[in-house]
């Protein structure tokens, strides 16, 4: 009876979560890894397996008996990395399967679309992989939370390392995917590097559907730039990086300086797609399996034992968000979205990787350490592609909630639905 | 194609096939409509057979069935040409076995010149008349050799269609309304050509609306009505039998 008054209040002894990930389309592999993480999280919540990060998590309310004593069940759906499909799939979870929480996704467009839907429907949304500033900026929603970092944080973490490694006097040429995420990342990186003395000589927008970037790479050679920043993700990133390397950019010396390529947002899965080309390239990432904190070790152990390979950053995010949601429900003592929002807002914790972490109340963005990584020169295995160059402390990537890059949004009120 | 010979009679029909070309109990369908309804007739080597009947009687369908085209589909019966079982063949095999059909709408191939249309006929064996010999027979085609075949006038197309059949070494020529749309002088010409062809020993089945004309040329006649043979006999007999002519040919 205490659960009345909100959408899909769990009935009986079970509670249903909705895992909405790309299962078809170019991000299907990433989606598959997310799904593995979710399944692992459900096992751990239900008290099966070795418990993973439940042991290292600073909050100790989860007991391995489901959530609030209700066994966790889940439904899955395919976002196809399309807003419409993602919303349809999320709706079917809400309307048909009675999911109280939706999580997942592998692109910002989808995350924002589903977040909006969850706000309207009155369920909690725990975003998966979404890196655009807008998710917790102008499109932020009270029912949505993001564990992943964002474009601004990438810039703030990456810029000092770039300056340290390549010097303060650099001319950067940006190639940017022509859609929201690309723009916000480009803006963030340009701002952060310019603050340290870099110059941005050009920013060229590339169509989403582009497969061959040669005609965008060729002009870089004569532009006077000595750094190429690729604001691309997924297939775009693999192709633009491959093309840039093909054109011999990395062997170029411009005004006595070695030409460098930077890929601000890295993922190990994409790095594998880029093969040899990734070696020595700097970028940032949310999390990496080679971190040595207890939480990471427990998670990698548990994931690796079950699946035979280490988890990706997307898997980590998804796993952690499931735990965080469960924990918030347990602490609030209710599945009511508004209670969950209250429990998560301003929540500080540790033990889930990336050091002490805060879910900021103002915009539902999470703040934690950000990793700067480099493509490894001599990988020992097919998973060992990135090496951590620096763990940028949380303080360095924090920003004010009303920072101009995040302005314009309105969190609104939490919506419990029915 | 996929028609099995019907051995109901207990022996292979080929052994008793009385003629050069024998059609025996042939039935054929367009989809579900039963068009060729159990037709049997024989054609002897070197003769001209006139195949007559009203519009829609099934003349074209019969010719197409003999040439083993996909439509109509022959579902029953046997066709033997010179001891070869046509009913087991597909249309290009039938052509190689010696069938030459001049279809009623001529079917000149678009995109090819007059000469290419003829050349096309000489790719698969056996090859018949040479191109220069055909141009002698139809000088008009020689003049138009580089023109695209489908832009020829109606009569010219008819000549091309016949030329194309003769370009192959055929045993049986199936002519579906060859005079249609031709100027009277040309009709005379073609009639002469048919006689020449006959002299070469080629067997001909001639479908023609101008029955009198056809009968004058032909040795024998078969009359079809709604898909069945209603008369099989000598051409003279038809010309002499006013009743028959009135009933099935309306002349």
């Amino acid at each position, binding site marked *: 009876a205490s659960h009345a008054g909100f959408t899909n209040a769990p009935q009986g002894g079970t509670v249903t979560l909705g895992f909405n990930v790309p*299962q*078809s389309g170019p991000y*299907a592999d990433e*989606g*598959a890894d997310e*799904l593995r993480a979710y*399944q692992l999280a459900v096992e751990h919540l239900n008290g099966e397996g070795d418990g993973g990060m439940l042991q290292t998590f600073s909050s100790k309310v989860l007991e391995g008996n489901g959530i609030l004593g209700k066994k966790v069940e*889940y*439904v*899955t*759906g*395919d976002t196809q990395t*399309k*807003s*419409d*499909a993602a*919303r*349809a*799939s999320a*709706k*079917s979870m809400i*309307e*048909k399967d009675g999911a109280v929480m939706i999580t997942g996704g592998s692109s*910002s*467009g989808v995350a*924002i*679309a589903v977040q*909006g*839907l969850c706000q*309207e*429907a009155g369920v909690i949304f725990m975003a998966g992989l979404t890196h655009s500033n*807008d998710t917790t900026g102008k*499109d932020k929603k009270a029912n949505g939370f993001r564990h992943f970092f964002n474009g601004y944080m990438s810039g703030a973490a990456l810029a000092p390392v770039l300056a340290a490694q390549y010097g303060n006097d650099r001319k950067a040429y940006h190639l940017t995917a*022509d*859609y*929201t*995420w690309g723009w916000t990342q480009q803006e963030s990186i340009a701002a952060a590097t310019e603050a340290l003395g870099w110059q941005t000589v050009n920013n060229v*927008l590339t*169509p*989403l559907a582009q497969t061959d970037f040669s005609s965008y790479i060729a002009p870089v050679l004569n532009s006077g730039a000595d750094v190429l920043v690729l604001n691309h993700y997924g297939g775009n990133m693999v192709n633009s990086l491959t093309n840039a390397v093909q054109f011999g950019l990395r062997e170029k010396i411009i005004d006595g300086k070695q030409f460098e390529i930077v890929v601000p947002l890295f993922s190990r899965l994409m790095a594998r797609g880029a093969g040899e080309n990734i070696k020595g390239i700097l970028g940032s990432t949310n999390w990496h399996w080679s971190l040595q904190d207890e939480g990471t070790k427990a998670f990698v152990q548990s994931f690796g034992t079950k699946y035979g390979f280490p988890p990706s950053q997307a898997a980590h995010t998804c796993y952690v968000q499931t735990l965080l949601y469960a924990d918030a429900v347990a602490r609030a003592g209710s599945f009511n979205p508004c209670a969950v929002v209250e429990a998560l807002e301003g929540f500080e914790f540790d033990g889930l990787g990336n050091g002490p972490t805060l879910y900021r109340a103002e915009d539902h963005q999470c703040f934690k350490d950000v990793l700067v990584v480099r493509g490894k020169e001599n990988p020992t295995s097919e998973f060992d592609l990135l090496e951590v160059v620096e763990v940028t402390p949380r303080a360095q990537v924090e920003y004010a909630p009303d920072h101009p890059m995040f302005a314009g949004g*309105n969190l*609104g009120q939490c919506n419990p639905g029915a | 194609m996929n028609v099995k010979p019907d051995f109901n009679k207990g022996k292979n029909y080929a052994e008793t096939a009385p003629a050069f070309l024998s059609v025996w109990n042939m039935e054929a369908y367009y989809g*579900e409509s039963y068009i060729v309804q159990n037709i049997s007739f024989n054609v002897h080597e070197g003769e001209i057979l006139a195949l007559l009947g009203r519009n829609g009687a099934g003349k074209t369908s019969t010719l197409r069935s003999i040439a083993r085209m996909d439509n109509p589909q022959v579902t029953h019966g046997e066709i033997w040409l010179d001891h070869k079982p046509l009913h087991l063949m597909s249309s290009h095999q039938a052509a190689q076995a010696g069938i030459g059909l001049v279809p009623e709408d001529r079917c000149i191939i678009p995109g090819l010149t007059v000469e290419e249309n003829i050349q096309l006929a000489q790719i698969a064996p056996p090859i018949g008349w040479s191109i220069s010999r055909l141009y002698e027979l139809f000088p008009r085609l020689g003049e138009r050799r580089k023109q695209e075949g489908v832009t020829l006038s109606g009569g010219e197309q008819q000549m091309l269609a016949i030329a194309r059949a003769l370009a192959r070494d055929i045993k049986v020529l199936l002519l579906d309304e060859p005079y249609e749309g031709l100027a009277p002088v040309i009709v005379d010409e073609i009639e002469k050509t048919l006689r020449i062809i006959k002299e070469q020993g080629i067997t001909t089945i001639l479908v023609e609306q101008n029955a009198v004309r056809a009968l004058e040329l032909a040795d024998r006649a078969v009359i079809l009505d709604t898909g069945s043979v209603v008369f099989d006999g000598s051409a003279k007999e038809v010309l002499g039998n006013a009743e028959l002519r009135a009933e099935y040919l309306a002349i």
Partner: protein
Amino acid sequence: MFGLKNTDLRLLLIVFVLTMAAPFILNPFPTESGLAQFNAGYPDLMQKFVIFGIFAIGFNILFGLTGYLSFGHAAFLGVGSYACVWMFKLLGYNVVPGILLSIVVSGLFALLIGVITLRRSGIYFSILTLAFAQMSFALAYSVLSNPKFNLTNGETGLQVYADDPQWFHSDRLPDLPHLFGLSMRATHKMQLGAWEFQFNAGYYMCAVIMLVCFYLAIRIFRSPFGLMLRAVKSNQQRMNYTGLNSRPYTLAAFVISGMYAGLAGGLLSAVDPLAGAERMQWTASGEVVLMTILGGAGTLIGPVLGAGLIKYFENIFSKINESVLHQWFGFLPDGLEDFVITLIYPFVGKGWHLTLGLIFMLVVIFLPGGLIEGGQRIGRALRGKKASDAGKSASTEPAE
């Protein structure tokens, strides 16, 4: 009645009953049973069925009747969606102005594109429409969403923000699309034994509109205008030499089907107020082509069936994951269970595309007339031989 012949009236009645009773028909399995996975009777999917049904019916008016294969119809769907959301942003959440505007705007857009593209026929026409749609998509996805002139809100999709004007919005009204106060999301749930049925306001609004659209389509098919459209498909040469100008006929058909598409787009926004650019991508245009052919081009009800089948697969099959399979086959001995699941697994869940592809192939190979032919065959088999003769004479009327 309604100016329809008996067979058409019967068809309309059947469709009427099916749409009205859809919440029951689509939910045949008890909620708790393993097969509940196959239930499709929840608001979103039912809405999708009828909305894409409208899209396909409209597309079929052009393609099925005139044979002009447009590969850019999604552009009209997208334009309709945007128009509707803009009405939400400017006027408020009442769906009526949005839906009306979406029809008008897409009609105008179709007129513009039709005038240009209909100068060509056959494959050249298809590629022209494709080119226009792809351009619209590219413009909507990035160019028209730059901060200075943000018409489409790009990748994120056009949506209503709290600071939008919404001139006619008042606090008494729902904060979501509504029809004079009746929220599109309002759903009445009915518990009947082990079953649960959902009656959703948005669905019923869409269903009624689809019935009207379907009725109009029947009228068009049976009208002299429809006859002329079929004449265009059959022999344009003869048409011209019979003193008929084929261009205005095709253009009218193009605009009408563009308006159907725009209406479908408007309804998509009306039940879910977010309009994304990917609705205009060629894959979306391709989808409606597939729906129509799959169901049976040139038939009245076929395209609706095709739309239903594709949407069903997209939403139902994609959700069958490994744990669902284990639930179903749990009764089998372990080894066998795993074996069966390994066999089935590639075809469901993330493999749903594979099944869809196979269905496409199987349908065209074995049912050349599309799903509708399957239905006819079943019907014929049921009614026995006597009825089969009737079926034959009916088949001479292609638009059955």
